[in-house]
Structure formats: structure tokens, C-alpha cells
């Protein structure tokens, strides 16, 4: 049975070396499944999945009698035309850049405030029995509430200004950040803490040199998740009263059944989301190189 004969290393390296980071024989391990450090992004598969999506899109919208009607989901050509027109003329009362910046700044403000509130609360919940008792029911009670359900309340409390939208995005991200920070603290091995104590560390040093670095990977994951949740809440947030923003554009265009504009803005949000995630990954690699090695 030829299955038992391993492929020559040189051939494997030649096949994958162009795309994978695993080059040469020295980094090859006999068993890799479950070893997270071996899982790097496979660009072959990235191209494959993106190309596949585009192909499916093309297949279901092509021809004079497409599987999905043009008004239900526009084809690539129509979306491209709508995109270039959106870049040139914007939509309604804003240019493409004004819409994008309005939404981007709301998401970043919401995320920043959510993080600034969430990390200390999460750390406190991980470090103090009393504070955990206080915050646990609050977090668990409010976390599952969908932001859309809060619209009328937020309008009454905060009005329809900019702060109201940012507050809704804070709401979306703060619970994620609290839970991530708490999980980060809880994940710090007790042996590390006791080792540090036995070396003479004080409380502050424990927090600064043991807990913080060990919790950071979880916090970073939390920020990435919160970023996604924030973009996901954008349409709801911009229902709080604005004509300018990607989410508001999607809502207004849908009222006029302008599906090409809806799809363009969905894709713009998607691309911005991916770009921000890439930035976060680069930051992560720079700032916490010890991730996954503790």
C-alpha cells in the first residue's frame, strides 16, 4: 500500500513552500494536528474560498433568467457599477468618505469606551470574590439583550445625537470585553502566581508582571470579537437617527429596494472589518509575541 510511504520531504516542501510559512525540513514535525503553532493561514485556501464565493455569486446571478432575481440580489456587474457610482457621488447627502468615516469613528469610539470600561471590570471580577458577586448577575442579565430592543429606550435617554449611537456600540462591546478580561485573569496559572510570590513579588508586581501579560492574549481576542460585534450592531445604532453612515445607508436604501446600494455597503463594511482584523493581528504579533507559548 503506497499510503504508508510518506511523500518525499522535498516534494512536500516544493508543493506547499510557496504558500506556507513552513519551509525546509527543520520545522517539520511528525505530528501537527492540535499544535496551534503549526496552523498558519493557508493562502491557497484563502484564494480558494474567496474565489469559490465569487463563483457561486456569479453562477446564481448570471444570464437573463438568473437563479436569484436581480432585484433580490444584484449581480457582480450591477454591484460594481453601484460601487463606482457610490465612490463618485456618494449616497443622498453624504460622500462615500463621509459615510464611511461616520461609521468608522462611531465603531472606534464605541469600542474604545467599551474596552476602557470592560477591562477593569473584567479584571476586578477575576480578582475579587466580592466584585465578581456584584457584577456577575449584571453582566449575565444584560449581555443577551439585543441592541435593537434598546432603540426606544436609548432614544428617550440619550436622544438622537452622536452620543446615543456611540452608547449603543459601547453596549455592544462592553460585555464582550468584560468577559474576555475576566477569562484572561482566570486563565493565569496559579503556579505562576505562587512562583512569583515565592520570589518576593508584591501585589502590584503580581498584577503588572504576571496577570497582565498572561491575560493580554484573551483581552486581544476580546477586542477582535468586540470589533465584529460592533460592526454587527452598526445598522441598529444608526437607526438611532442619522442620514449619514454605512448602516443608515443600508437601511434607507432598503426602504427604496435599492439592493445594489445595500450590497455595496454590506461589502464595504465587510472589507473594513477584515482590514481592522488584520491590523489587530499584526498588533497582536508585535505586542504579545508570547501568545500561545505559556
Amino acid at each position: 500500500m503506497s499510503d504508508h510511504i510518506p511523500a518525499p520531504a522535498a516534494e512536500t516542501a516544493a508543493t506547499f513552500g510557496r504558500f506556507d510559512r513552513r519551509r525546509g525540513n527543520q520545522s517539520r514535525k511528525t505530528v501537527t494536528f492540535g499544535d496551534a503553532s503549526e496552523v498558519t493561514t493557508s493562502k491557497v485556501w484563502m484564494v480558494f474560498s474567496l474565489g469559490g464565493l465569487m463563483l457561486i455569486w456569479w453562477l446564481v446571478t448570471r444570464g437573463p433568467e438568473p437563479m436569484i432575481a436581480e432585484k433580490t440580489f444584484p449581480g457582480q456587474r450591477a454591484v460594481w457599477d453601484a460601487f463606482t457610482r457610490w465612490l463618485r457621488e456618494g449616497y443622498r447627502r453624504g460622500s462615500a468618505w463621509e459615510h464611511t468615516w461616520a461609521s468608522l469613528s462611531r465603531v472606534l469610539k464605541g469600542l474604545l469606551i467599551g474596552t476602557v470600561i470592560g477591562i477593569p471590570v473584567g479584571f476586578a471580577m477575576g480578582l475579587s470574590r466580592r466584585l465578581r458577586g456584584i457584577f456577575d448577575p449584571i453582566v449575565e442579565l444584560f449581555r443577551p439583550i439585543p441592541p435593537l430592543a434598546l432603540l426606544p429606550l436609548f432614544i428617550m435617554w440619550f436622544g438622537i445625537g452622536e452620543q446615543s449611537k456611540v452608547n449603543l456600540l459601547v453596549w455592544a462591546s462592553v460585555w464582550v470585553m468584560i468577559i474576555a478580561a475576566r477569562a484572561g485573569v482566570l486563565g493565569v496559572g496559579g503556579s505562576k502566581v505562587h512562583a512569583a510570590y515565592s520570589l518576593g513579588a508584591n501585589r502590584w508586581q503580581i498584577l503588572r508582571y504576571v496577570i497582565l501579560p498572561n491575560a493580554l492574549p484573551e483581552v486581544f481576542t476580546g477586542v477582535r470579537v468586540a470589533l465584529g460585534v460592533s460592526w454587527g450592531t452598526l445598522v441598529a445604532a444608526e437607526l438611532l437617527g442619522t442620514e449619514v453612515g454605512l448602516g443608515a445607508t443600508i437601511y434607507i436604501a432598503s426602504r427604496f429596494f435599492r439592493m445594489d446600494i445595500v450590497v455595496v455597503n454590506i461589502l464595504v463594511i465587510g472589507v473594513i472589518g477584515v482590514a481592522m482584523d488584520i491590523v489587530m493581528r499584526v498588533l497582536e504579533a508585535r505586542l504579545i509575541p508570547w501568545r500561545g507559548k505559556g
Partner: protein
Amino acid sequence: MKNWRRIMAFLMAFGLVAAACGSGGDSSPETTAATTTDAPTTTAVAVDTGGLDELNVAYFLEWPTANQVAQAEQTYDDVLGLTVNWWPFASGNDMALAMESGDIDISYSQGLTPFANYVTSGADHVIVGVAVSYADADNCVAHPDYGVSQDNAASSLAGQNIYTPIGNVTHFKLLKMLEHLGVDLDGVSLIPSEGGPAAVAAFENGDVAMACAFGGAINTMLAAGGNLVMTGSEQEALGIRVFDIISIPRSFGDDHPSVVTAFLQVTEDANAAYASDRGSLEETIAAAAGMDVAGSNSLLDAFTFLDRDSQLSDAWLGGTVQAAMKEQMDFFVAQGEIDTALDSYDAVVDTSYLEGVR
């Protein structure tokens, strides 16, 4: 081997996603009253249901209509000989999308504007009847702090926020009213809203000079101290017609013509019963609309339910409705909301079903 595992993992993930998407809209309607009751086997009426065993109808909450007596007493179910599911909606736009998806067969009381918008974008839906005419039940209420009146609207609304649904008749009415009052449209911010509770909340918060809505929200805002800038009849005098229609996907009518006609027949009978004796039906209607009797009645006062002959006359489906759609869509083209309007809206009105009503 490893590649195969990767492919398998990819396919499995894909399958999971597909399965998740497939199981989407299976929830049952909240308002189906006792679907377990057997369809009565009265032999008096024989509607050819064409293999249909359920009819899905879209309607509005907080929108009391005469036919809700028939809805509550399940007259539709009895006459049609099938289960009628009533699905509550928040906007006529959503009704159009639900009809497009095939989940809704008949939209009762869809606004004319969302309907016209959607057929303009290429949908194959048709109007089969006029549900209700109303002018006072759809309006804009000015916040007392801003002191807006007809005389000073051009100055008092300049630079202010106006809260309004977008792409529906409320939006159209608002734009026509502002135009009439000489308000510079570039100088006001129209804040898109879902109407209803959101409009009331924005009004009570006071960030908006005016909030536009339909149904019970208007009464709430008036009770909170707001004032109408123009009354419904003043707006009607400008030629702004406000009415809701009964619409279907054209293919549904082609497949089940007798179901559509029977639906219109039950509606006609319910409207006639309401016209002859409203008092005894008020409580039933209010309960079905999810309102208290006083609130329901104040809306009913503003409503006119047209009989078959009026609907078929030139004042309505005989030509005026088609012209109203053309006017509204041309107006939205001029406003830059849409790119083009249809040349004519004659083809999206089909009176053949209504003509079968006695």
C-alpha cells in the same frame, strides 16, 4: 491524506452553514388563533383552493380595520376552507419583501408608496383592492417646544430634525407638505425611523422638531402636547391621497384566483357589516388591533372602508390609484431617492378579482 481531511473539514463547515440558513424562517405566526380547530365542512361555499391548505396574510398591528372582525372570528378560515395565518408587520416595505420571498400571499393594508416603490424596482406584484382610505391617521406632529405652525414652518423648521419613516406614504406626505409650506428641503434633516414607538420616543426626548408616523403613535404624541402642522383634510385639499391597498404577488393570483376573490368577498362583507352597525364591533376590532377601545375608535373615525363599487370607480382603481403611483414615483425621482419610475402603473392594478365580488 491530510489534504482530504482539510477538504472534508471545509465541506462539513459549509454544510453546517447551509443547514443553519435552511432552517431560518420556520417559526409559526404569533397570531394564529387556535390553528387546531378543524376547518368547518360547510357545503354552502366551495372555494377552489387549488391544493392550498394555508393562506398567509400580512397586516399591521395598531391599525384597526373593519375586516378584523372576520379575522378574529375566523370567518376567512371558514369561508376559504383553509387555515389563514395573520402575520403582523411594521412596514409596507417589509410586506413587499415578504411577498417576494413567497412567505406572504396577501398583504392587507399595505401602503401605496412601498408597493409602488417595489414594483418600480421590478417586482411582479399587483393591487387587487383598496383596503382603507385615511388622511388623519397618518401625519406629522410638531413638538411644543419648537412652536411650529403653518405660517412659520419655513423658519421654525429650518435647520431642525424631523423624524420620519422613509420610502413610504408618510415620507411622501411630509415632503409634499414641506414643499407646500415653503420649507427648504436641504435645510432640514430627515431622520429615518421605523415609526411607531421609536417616533414617540424621539418626540418625547425633544431632539426632533417634528415626528411623523401612522396609527396610534400620532394620538400618543398629540396627547403629549404636540400639534398638527396641517390637518389631514388640509393635506387632502393639496391633492395628497392617503390610502392603503390590498396586494398580492401576481403569480399567487394566477395560481389561486378564487382564493383571492373569496378573500375580497369576506372583506367586503365585513366592511358592509361595519358600515351598518359599527358600535357592536368596536371591541372586537380594538382587541384584534392590540389597542384599547378609545384609541382604536379615534383611528376608526379617520378611516373609510370602501365598498366594491367605489373601489372600482374612476376615483380609485379605475385610474386615480395608477395616477397617484405615477405622481409619487416621479416625485421621488425628482428628489433623487430613486433613479427611474415606470412609464405607467396601469399594469400593476388587476381588478378582475374584485369584479368577482358580489
